[in-house]
């Protein structure tokens, strides 16, 4: 298909450690299409982070192929094809929110007027208008994470890779951010790769749920969501939602069965 954004074929990554080889990924196949919201779910150590890092050229696969926008992850990274959101917001304490969001733009040599416009635009996307002059420590954890998402969006990459971005936040804040993230995705039509531990979060957000299992890290199920694009929070009580959640749970259990 023409609108494939990320394609992995027989992707494997083995870390050589002092305790012997660790098969973080083994023969992973996956296609992600433009505009997809793909969640990666599975117990810790199943290679979710490693997979995302391979897409971002932060980790080098030991076998198999992976392309991002039709080119190698390195070429895609150098073309600034994706924004990456880490588990911790990682804002610089010596920069204001504005300065933090501006950082990648400064690095990319975007001119000042364009920087200003981009900062305003993404601040609005994550609902942080009016906080640009604040320092990170003046913001709550949820707001900091929103600022870090804004920073990843600021340079208009079509792909957004997020590694448990809301993992450290409490559930109420998380619900709220999930809603905002869906809204942002609908408005920007970005392709999103999202790592999570939480079944409801994965089902609520995704068009495609990738269930993974550890030792060796592999994909055990890929679930195409039948939920509509428009998703109010209470969709989580609908039979359809519960059915998908069941299938995810079964996939996770099957993955666990053989160790």
């Amino acid at each position, binding site marked *: 298909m023409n609108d494939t954004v990320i394609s992995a074929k027989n992707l494997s990554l083995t870390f050589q450690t002092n305790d012997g080889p660790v098969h973080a990924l083994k023969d992973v196949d996956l296609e992600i299409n433009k505009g997809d919201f793909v969640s990666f779910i599975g117990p810790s150590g199943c290679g979710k982070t490693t997979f995302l890092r391979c897409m*971002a*050229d*932060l980790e080098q696969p030991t076998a198999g192929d992976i392309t991002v926008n039709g080119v190698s992850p390195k070429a895609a*990274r*150098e073309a*600034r094809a*994706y*924004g*990456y959101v*880490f588990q*911790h917001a*990682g804002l*610089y*304490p*010596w920069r204001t929110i504005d300065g933090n969001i501006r*950082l*990648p733009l*400064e*690095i*990319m040599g975007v001119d000042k007027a364009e920087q200003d416009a981009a900062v305003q635009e993404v601040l609005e996307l994550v609902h942080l208008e009016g906080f640009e002059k604040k*320092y*990170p*420590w003046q913001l709550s954890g949820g707001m900091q994470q929103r600022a870090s998402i804004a920073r990843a969006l600021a*340079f208009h990459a079509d792909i957004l890779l997020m590694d448990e971005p809301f993992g450290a936040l409490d559930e109420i804040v998380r619900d709220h951010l999930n809603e905002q993230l869906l809204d942002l995705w609908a408005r920007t039509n970005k392709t999103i790769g999202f790592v999570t531990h939480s079944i409801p979060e994965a089902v609520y957000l995704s068009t495609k749920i990738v269930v993974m299992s550890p030792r060796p890290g592999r994909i055990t199920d890929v679930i195409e969501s039948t939920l509509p694009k428009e998703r109010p929070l209470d969709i989580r009580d609908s039979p359809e939602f519960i059915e998908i959640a069941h299938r995810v749970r079964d996939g996770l259990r099957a993955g666990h069965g053989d160790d």
Partner: protein
Amino acid sequence: MRNLFPILTVVAAIFALWYAGSVVLNAPWAYDKAERAGVELTTKELIADTMSQKKPKLPPPHQVGAEIWKTTGAMVAKGRAFSKRSLIYHSWITLSATLLGFALGTGFGIILSVGIVYNRSMDMSVMPWVIASQTIPILAIAPMIIVVLNAVGISGLLPKAVISMYLSFFPVVVGMVKGLRSPDHMQVDQMKTWNASRAQEFWKLRLPSSMPFLFPSLKVAMAASLVGAIVGELPTGAVAGLGARLLGGSYYGQTIQIWSALITAAVLAAALVGIIGMIQKVVLKRMGMA
């Protein structure tokens, strides 16, 4: 105010010990004089004598204080603040070498640390030399530096500053290597996702991150610089500077002069380190790192 009490207690204790030490150490000379004059000393006379000798073994605080005043405040009052007899003049001579050496040492230390952090072969090779350089006693190196530089026609301020630099670059290298390496993997990876160059990574991430490590190093470096400048004044028989006052004092047994130079050096060091501490507070607070 609550902090003041313990400080005052310590100061009072130091003065008490100092006075007691003066009495004990200066007493033999007082007895000597009395014996030669054939008189018996009462305790009161003895103490009075130990407090006012011309060349006491350990001058009591008030004698040192009076000498410092005579060579600073009193000279200023007479409009001769920069005469050769003024401690202000000698302090300035030493201070200028200290500051120049500190600046050179800090610059050299930062350059070395950048090299160590960014260049693999420097990382492997430089640190042992840096450490070795500090294991050689400065008293052995200082005369050589002075003599060698004098031979090529460089004298005065610069040789002393070089010795200061020799002592002060070390804490800066150690602190800055640690500081420049303080960003965690995630922060470095994040820079990579933006395809940042090494220079951008340095200016925007590593250098700002190193600030909390830089300032403590600068404090140690400043104190070391002052020691270096004073040591640099000893081997040449310099005529100016706090080191020269120390040396001159010891030639002629002028203990009061030695002690007043020592105390002045200590006050100078405290002031310089205090200034860095203040800058540290302001900078780190502004950077949200305090």
